[in-house]
């Protein structure tokens, strides 16, 4: 059962009406069957038109949808033979970032990403996808291992941001993020990052400083949450929608700004309505980018990555 977002209310009402008709019909009443088909068509068209013109703030809601596929779903649907690797060897194991060896359509890769969890227990376990220094230091360890063994790195980014807490600060949250970004930039192997949900600030960029950066169609990527920007710049919590628009957080905007390299299409109504299809599209896009990067030697990979980021903000 899909849970509907506020702006999907008209679709939800149609779907409810369809469900009611289905419950009363036994298949013999042709008028009811025809009515169901008509409503289904109308509902599909309404969903498509709603998703065809989502505002940046609505996309933010979709990107945060509780049923949106996360890292563990993509591991199951886009990858095979996953071997999780744990711990930073310094302090602990942070389940907000998961990583390990996997195959992407037969290609051996190191895959690393944020996991938000899908119910209360797993959300607590994964700290809602908000990593602590040990999460970023694990990512560094795995990236260095990938570089050592010639495995391309794929990252799936989905975080509201790095965890803001006392222990995280004490253990060097800022340093861990800075070093993780540095580790991305030092890789002698291809690296492709995909923002699959929320790309929240430094906590995202730490594992997204890649050769190629992709975004799912309704993912968002920003320097601060729209709520945060609203309260700081507008000095009210009510301007999140305006902030989302002003900051240009959508995949379409970021492609125009040359911050990302490609958009992975989502099924009509968003990734959560068809995780398998989303995962297939993601795997295809990742495979294409990796194949193209495999033509570069280590020096070429390093300089392509450096040039990519040096260009942002240069006249």
């Amino acid at each position, binding site marked *: 059962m899909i849970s509907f977002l506020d702006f999907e209310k008209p679709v939800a009402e149609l779907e409810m009406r369809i469900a009611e008709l289905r419950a009363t019909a036994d298949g013999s009443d042709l008028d009811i069957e025809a009515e169901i088909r008509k409503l289904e068509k109308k509902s599909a068209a309404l969903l498509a038109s709603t998703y065809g013109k989502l505002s940046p703030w609505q996309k933010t809601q979709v990107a945060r949808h509780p049923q949106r596929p996360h890292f563990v779903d993509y591991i199951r649907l886009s990858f095979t033979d996953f071997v999780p690797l744990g711990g930073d060897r310094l302090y602990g194991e942070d389940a907000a970032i998961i990583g390990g060896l996997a195959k992407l359509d037969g290609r051996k890769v190191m895959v690393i990403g944020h996991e938000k969890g899908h119910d209360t227990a797993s959300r607590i376990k994964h700290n809602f996808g908000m990593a602590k220094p040990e999460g970023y230091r694990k990512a560094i360890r795995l990236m260095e291992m990938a570089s050592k063994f010639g495995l391309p790195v794929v990252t799936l980014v989905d975080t509201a941001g790095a965890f*803001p807490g*006392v222990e995280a600060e004490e253990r060097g*949250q800022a340093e861990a993020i800075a070093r993780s*970004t540095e580790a991305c930039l030092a890789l002698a192997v291809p690296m492709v990052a995909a923002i699959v949900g929320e790309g929240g600030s430094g906590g995202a960029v730490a594992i997204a400083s890649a050769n190629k950066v992709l975004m799912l169609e309704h993912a968002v990527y920003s*320097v601060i949450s729209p709520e945060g920007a609203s309260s700081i*710049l*507008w000095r009210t919590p009510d301007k999140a929608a305006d902030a989302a628009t002003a*900051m240009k*957080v959508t995949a379409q905007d970021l492609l125009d700004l040359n911050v990302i390299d490609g958009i992975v299409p989502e099924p009509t109504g968003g990734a959560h309505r068809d995780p398998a299809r989303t995962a297939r599209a993601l795997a295809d896009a990742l495979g294409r980018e990796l194949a193209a990067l495999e033509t570069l030697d280590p020096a070429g990979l390093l300089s392509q990555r450096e040039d990519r980021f040096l260009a942002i*903000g240069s006249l």
Partner: protein
Amino acid sequence: MSWLSKVRNSLSSLAKRDTPDNLWMKCPSCGEMLFAKDFEANLSVCPHCQHHGRIATQARFDLLLDAGYVVLPTPKVPENPLGFRDTKKYPDRLKAARAANPFPDALTNACGTVDGRKAVLGVQDFRFMGGSMGMAVGEAFVAGVERAIAENCAYVICTAAGGARMQEGILSLMQMPKTTVATRSLAAAGLPYIVILTDPTTGGVTASYAMLGDVQIAEPGALIGFAGQRVIQDTIREKLPDGFQRAEYLHAHGMVDMVVHRKDLKTTLATLLEYLERKDVA
């Protein structure tokens, strides 16, 4: 006291320039009344409690570099690429910041010597839009590093920033990897990168170039952290520890090499430059 000096007194900020002789100010830390002129003459450090006030870019250059340094031009960057406006247009905020500051953005470099040892020094000024890191800061950082590589000398940066410049959205975030590309090229050239963390250094600046120094120096009492204290408090709903995110606290947790009083910064820097200078370079 005239009504005008009363007004000016009440408005006085810690490092107001051209301070009249008779102006008093209250130390924001210990509350002692200080002659503003004495405070400035004491490097904007309170003689009673050693509170380190924020100082402007020029004062930093004068503090750390020998006379005769050259201020480098601030690179030009695209302005307002997002067409951003919140309650004000971003270009209007920039204009106001430029009217109130001597340099065109928050990070300015100078090329000179520290007790005779060559260095490029970057200074981030909190007074320019909270020191925030936008494209101009990122580009200036890269330019400073490039100049250091060209001069075959260290790059030293005094950081001060609330974080990324939100008015530049994602483009400000992208300055984190961009500046890190620069620190890596400095390392590849075998040249020292020294960070002097000043009050305050937070957010995306801390989580990029401010934490990547070969040597990390912090000024006493400087607020240094990733997340803002209010955000942390809202998350954990507990009282924050005493001295949390202050320079001394970071030192105790292994995040900086040393906490150095402003009066000793230059000699410390000169000593480090002497040690880290490579023999094999001319």
